[in-house]
């Protein structure tokens, strides 16, 4: 399940066998009209979700899930929600590669995914070596508190979603600024 940094469900991947017993992945991406007047931002959002779910699909189709490789859905392996360290490490490398080599700055919602995983598996953040997966402690803590219901999502503000927009040209940025002034 992908959740955007604003906490909305953005997509999910199911893995199941077809009638011939062959394992297949089914990726669903939700339409999102948050950036109704900014198709470029929508495309960027969709591509982030697509890569996020494709990574789940690859792990689901090609990773071994036996007890030896993935003991009791541990965080070191696939995790409870599919966002274990396998996914997080690969996602970090992919994000880096897309950004540095293809100049395609996409967000795979890694911090949100880790917070979701920790919340679902009832584990603590200190059990994770954040430097291995390139995430900031403060951000994950904030998101974890959001899942635990202690606070509202700190990243649901419009500005955080505007990270990938071109501020000088986008209509949405103006709207974001107006909202900020009003609040």
């Amino acid at each position, binding site marked *: 399940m992908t959740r955007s940094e604003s906490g*909305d*469900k953005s997509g999910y991947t199911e893995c199941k066998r077809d009638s011939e017993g*062959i*394992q*297949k*992945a*089914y*990726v*669903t*991406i*939700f*339409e*999102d009209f948050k950036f109704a007047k*900014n*198709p*470029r931002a*929508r*495309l*960027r959002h*969709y*591509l982030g979700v*697509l*890569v996020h779910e*494709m990574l789940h*699909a*690859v*792990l689901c*189709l*090609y*990773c*071994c*899930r*036996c*007890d*030896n*490789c*993935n003991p009791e859905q541990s965080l070191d*392996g696939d995790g409870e929600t599919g966002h274990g360290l*396998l996914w997080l*490490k*690969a996602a970090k*490398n*992919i994000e*880096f*590669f897309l950004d540095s*080599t*293809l*100049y*395609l*700055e996409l967000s795979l919602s890694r911090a949100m995914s880790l917070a979701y995983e920790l919340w679902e598996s009832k584990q603590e953040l200190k059990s994770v070596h954040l430097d291995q997966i390139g995430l900031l402690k403060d951000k994950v803590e904030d998101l974890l508190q959001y899942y635990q219901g202690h606070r509202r999502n700190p990243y649901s503000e419009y500005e955080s979603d505007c990270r990938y927009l*071109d501020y000088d040209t986008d209509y949405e940025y103006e709207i974001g600024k107006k909202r900020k002034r009003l609040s």
Partner: protein
Amino acid sequence: MSKCTVIHAQVGLRVSPPGWAPEGHSHGNAVSKLKKSRKDLKKNRETNRLLSKWFSSGFNDLHKMLLRYRSPENPLLFQHYFSYFSRILFDGALALENCKIRIAMRQEYDKEAWRSVAMSQGQLSALIRLTQQPLVYIVQMLPTSFLPQTTICNHSTSAFCDKK
């Protein structure tokens, strides 16, 4: 002249891209950077040529798609990006035969009324031809291997292992 127009002039497209094409995602920059980063790994002229050719066709295909479909919600656009990402990130491990992509309205969550992505026979053949090209060197170039070590597993007791 906008940055986008310059980029498209570089890749030889005659028509201006729609305003929502991912900016900076340029064929010329990516190829030169990949070639540069590849130098230390392999000095194989043939591989370089194939890589350049593949990138050229991949980027051109994507840009043509962007020109054709005026909305980012178009399922065919997703198919092209899916095939592109599969080849460049996962060495073609995902194809529409083993991984279906659906675009759904958020309100339809958990319902069966999906707009599934249908693919014509011609498109499927083209995709199979593309994914059969050996692109292992692209994966080798990455900072560390994307796929975790557990993908190489000889355990035979797991239900998931029997497919290997």
